[in-house]
């Protein structure tokens, strides 16, 4: 019943966007925040209703509004699908989205573009909701590019700063490279399945055998799209730069929701991906490589948001690793818990930055524990959750990934374990550098230090609560309790005959636990000594550091390689094509042809004597000739 009104879910934020966009500059900040937050609240409430109805019936439903694109046999509906996976995403998006909207009303309070900010956030919510609600690949693409646009607008939110707008362009363009893959994937799907509706495609996928070239091509192309949106190697460098946006944006878009769209896409198309073992293997390798490399980079970064950004890239790598071994619901489990603790960490970092009057360099922080007790406490929980502290949410979801990968590929498993040691290291480094030791900022900053207002701390507390308890969604097999999330998601694998039920061995499960706990203890010990007890150098001399440190610090020079290897050559080609090929060569030929014509004309001009009689004769001869030809043609045919 209520599912028929599913279009209300994206409509509320869309209205919020329109109202705030039209009223920007005219209405007060209070009304802007009421509209912005209220629209998301309404949407959240609608999602709760949807969830309750779905829980009651267990029936997935498609609701078609109208025919959107029609051309011959191609018929793409503007339609929505409500099923378990969609609801999983909807709850994350509207729930965490709501908290972040509330937080933003405090965080952005002094910003002159307040109303515009909420308009953009609402537009983002609309796009993200369309992305997960669409019932076909093209609908997903609407949301896919829509969130890309909002990400672009919000990264470049402080548009006077040239670096920020450059980061915005970079994010959009890099995402478009991914989108190219996605689009080609859609075309191939249409050519092979004759439809882009999920239902049609997935139900007829069984006609293809595993490893079918078409399926491999489709899944690889879709994965290119996922690489762009979810910041995987080689399309990940936009995400750290995206930290130029206001911190709530980083929490909402670049941690909890948008960047998980790639995982959503693959889980959604699990039927296709399970038919393409080659693609799965590539996803696993890229996921693990991304997880590891970005964790290494995070070790030496000083900007608190950059550390979290690389951490996000790394955690997304974990999720892709899970997808690579067909542990789809495990990936969704990590998407969910990661949304809790990474949103928490970003909002906590925002609270710190807010207190530090905009300072983001951790080398100038320190000892904030006493001044920001609530922020500290919640950040501590977030940090423990992400490092896999026993019984917190990240513990369960990460270990589930490790276990799935272990049974598939030992080398990848070992690399992921090493990565989790690195993760614990950079997260504890962040926590200790920020909250422990002596304060290292200026006196004005120290004087200004204050705990954030309740609109900002309450969302932190709620997220901290979720980060602690989120593990309930997926208690391990050993407990004998059902895996709630996995059971809930079961219907989306109905067309997938290739996932084997996987029950980890008891011994493996216990071993992974012990391994996790032991590494955390060791890492905790060393990082505490290095970053909490020891003095932090405010201006370290990077050139004196080891090669490995410099490689990590300089992010393996990937940006520089892209700049020299791709950006500059394209610009050079553009210039060469324009100056030499277009203006000199082609236009030269055209003008040359003109010159030849002029030359001929100058020869003909000798006929032009000014003698009227001669003209008349030529004209008459011409007419006669024409008539003759015409008449001849008429007679002969």
């Amino acid at each position: 019943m209520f599912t028929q009104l599913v279009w209300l879910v994206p409509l509320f934020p869309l209205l919020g966007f329109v109202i705030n966009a039209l009223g920007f500059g005219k209405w007060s900040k209070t009304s802007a925040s009421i509209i912005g937050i209220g629209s998301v609240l309404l949407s959240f409430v609608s999602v709760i209703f949807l969830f309750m109805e779905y829980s009651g019936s267990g029936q997935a439903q498609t609701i078609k509004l109208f025919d959107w694109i029609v051309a011959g046999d191609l018929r793409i509906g503007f339609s929505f699908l409500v099923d378990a996976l969609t609801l999983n995403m909807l709850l994350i998006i509207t729930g965490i989205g709501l908290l972040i909207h509330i937080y933003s009303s405090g965080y952005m309070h002094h910003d002159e573009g307040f109303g515009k900010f909420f308009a953009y956030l609402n537009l983002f919510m609309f796009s993200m909701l369309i992305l997960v609600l669409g019932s076909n690949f093209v609908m997903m693409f609407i949301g896919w590019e829509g969130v890309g646009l909002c990400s672009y607008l919000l990264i470049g939110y402080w548009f006077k700063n040239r670096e920020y707008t450059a980061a915005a362009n970079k994010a959009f363009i890099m995402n478009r490279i991914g989108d190219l893959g996605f689009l080609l994937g859609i075309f191939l799907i249409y050519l092979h399945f004759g439809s882009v509706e999920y239902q049609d495609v997935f139900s007829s996928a069984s006609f293809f055998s595993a490893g079918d070239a078409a399926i491999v091509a489709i899944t690889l192309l879709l994965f290119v799209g996922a690489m762009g949106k979810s910041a995987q190697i080689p399309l990940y460098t936009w995400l750290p730069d995206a930290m130029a946006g206001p911190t709530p944006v980083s929490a909402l878009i670049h941690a909890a929701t948008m960047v998980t769209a790639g995982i959503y896409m693959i889980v959604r198309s699990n039927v296709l991906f399970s038919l393409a073992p080659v693609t799965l293997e590539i996803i696993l390798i890229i996921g693990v490589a991304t997880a590891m490399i970005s964790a290494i980079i995070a070790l030496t970064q000083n900007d608190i948001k950059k550390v979290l950004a690389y951490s996000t890239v790394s955690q997304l790598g974990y999720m892709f690793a899970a997808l690579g071994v067909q542990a789809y619901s495990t990936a969704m489990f990590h998407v969910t818990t990661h949304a809790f603790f990474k949103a928490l960490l970003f909002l906590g970092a925002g609270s710190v930055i807010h207190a530090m009057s905009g300072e983001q360099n951790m080398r100038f922080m320190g000892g904030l524990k006493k001044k920001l007790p609530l922020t500290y406490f919640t950040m501590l929980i977030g940090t423990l959750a992400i490092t896999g502290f026993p019984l917190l949410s990240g513990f369960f979801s990460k270990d589930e990934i490790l276990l799935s990968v272990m049974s598939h590929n030992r080398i990848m498993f070992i690399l992921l374990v090493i990565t989790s040691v690195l993760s614990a290291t950079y997260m504890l480094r962040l926590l200790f550098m920020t909250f422990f030791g002596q304060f290292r900022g200026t006196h004005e900053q120290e004087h200004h230090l204050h705990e954030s207002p309740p609109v900002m701390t309450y969302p932190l507390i709620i997220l901290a609560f979720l980060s602690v308890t989120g593990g309930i969604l997926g208690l391990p097999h050993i407990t004998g309790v059902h895996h709630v999330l996995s059971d809930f998601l079961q219907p989306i694998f109905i067309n997938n005959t290739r996932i084997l039920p996987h029950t980890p061995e008891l011994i493996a499960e216990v071993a992974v636990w012990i391994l996790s706990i032991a590494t955390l203890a060791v890492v905790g010990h060393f990082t505490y000594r290095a970053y909490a007890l020891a003095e932090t150098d405010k201006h370290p001399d990077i050139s004196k550091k080891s090669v490995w440190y410099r490689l990590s610090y300089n992010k393996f020079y990937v940006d520089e390689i892209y700049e020299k290897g791709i950006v500059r050559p394209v610009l050079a080609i553009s210039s060469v094509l324009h100056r030499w090929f277009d203006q000199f060569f082609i236009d030269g030929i055209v003008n040359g042809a003109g010159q030849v014509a002029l030359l001929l004309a100058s020869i003909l001009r000798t006929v032009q004597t000014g003698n009227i009689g001669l003209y008349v004769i030529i004209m008459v001869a011409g007419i006669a000739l024409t008539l003759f030809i015409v008449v001849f043609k008429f007679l002969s045919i």
Partner: protein
Amino acid sequence: MLLALLIILPFLAALLAVFSKGGAKQIVQLVAWVNLSITIGLYTLSASLDSNLTSIDLPWILSMGIHFHLAADGISLVLLLLTNLLLPYILWSASAREYKNEPIFYALIAFMQSGLNGVFAAQDAFLFYVFYEVALIPVFFICAFWGGKDRIRITIKFFIYTLAGSLFMLLAIIYLYIKTPGTHTFNIQSFYALSLTDTEQTWIFWAFFLAFAVKIPIVPFHTWQADTYTTAPAPGTMLLSGIMLKMGLYGLIRFVLPVVPSALNQWQNWAMVLSVAGVVYGAVIAIRQNDLKTLLAYSSLSHVGLIAAGIFSSNIQGLQGAVVQMFNHGLSVVALFTLVDFIELRTGTRQISELSGLVNRSRQLAVVFMIVMLGAIGLPLTNGFIGEFLLLMAVFKFNPIAGAMACTTIIFGAVYMLRMYRNVFFGEETKGITIPSFNNREIISLYTLAAFVIILGVYPSLITSVSQDAADGLLQIINPAYTVR
């Protein structure tokens, strides 16, 4: 009859404008609005109107089998709507500037409207050719007399180039005429029924191709374009890019596809290569342009290349996509040139390197520009996406490699547009630039265009449902096995 009015009214307005000292602008504008109303009526009611009311078929030069024959199928209707929708808008934007010899200037625009409507409604090939050339003359004078730097050289080049191109079309049309049975006719429908040998088809194919390739333009016949767009006065650029180049694309649909299907089959690979090359070529060159108008010219080269590619793929997505995108491109490019003209008028420059931070000066300008730009780079739920999606799918269907190459436009399009937007609108504001805010009339017209960008992106059936039957009909002529679904 109504179609004839669309041609006669602007023609009379042009005459009146020339001979009336004052009020030329008002007469031409009034007629543009009347024409728009008639066109909207035709467009919305075409299915239910009696064909005697809309079309007309009078013998003109009977001995030669030439008829003054006007009728409009769905594809024609879309282009007629585009023409008569943009005309009032172009006239409005022209009124922001003072032009010397104003009566002549406006008379020429009205004259042009007359010719353009003729092209899109003509059912007689000779009539088509006449209108095709008639439409060229006014824009030639507009560019030659009201243009910018180096206008004479550039305009003459443009004129000779396109005129030379259409000579090939004339030859092809005359040849087809001679091949018609009985007393001979220029009726386009009877050209479709001709059975021509492969050699004949090949010659005719390339003759039409040359004529239209120059007008569209398709690489490498495009070098007149960037200079002409840059030099022409804003209304001239809008007429050229918004409407006139659609004559070439329309010609491909009307003549090349149905008249010489087997030559199309034989040669479409070549045509496709050139078209797709243009898509990438124009976009790559646009990246480094500093003059806003030149940038838009190369961007336009890229966009119309894709439309041509869609037409040459000769499948239903390609045709429908082409129709949708011809309309969209007209809207977008005219909106963009208006905005650029607006910027130039207020800041005195079109050079990207001299502009910065305009958003600080006029938020409305930045917002409208953003919406139109998003349409141009094909963001979903804007008009540009629908066209681009269908066209790219068509090309991909024809050949996946060509499709993938053409698809790079979504990357390069974003590169040059965002780079331009960032430099012009973002950053610190340039000193000494003041942009007075829009007046109400400007707001309404600009937001109307922006609204079209969104409305057609959300509900493209407004166009596709009108052109569907005509597109299906053409494909059935090309391939009798084609089934309508």
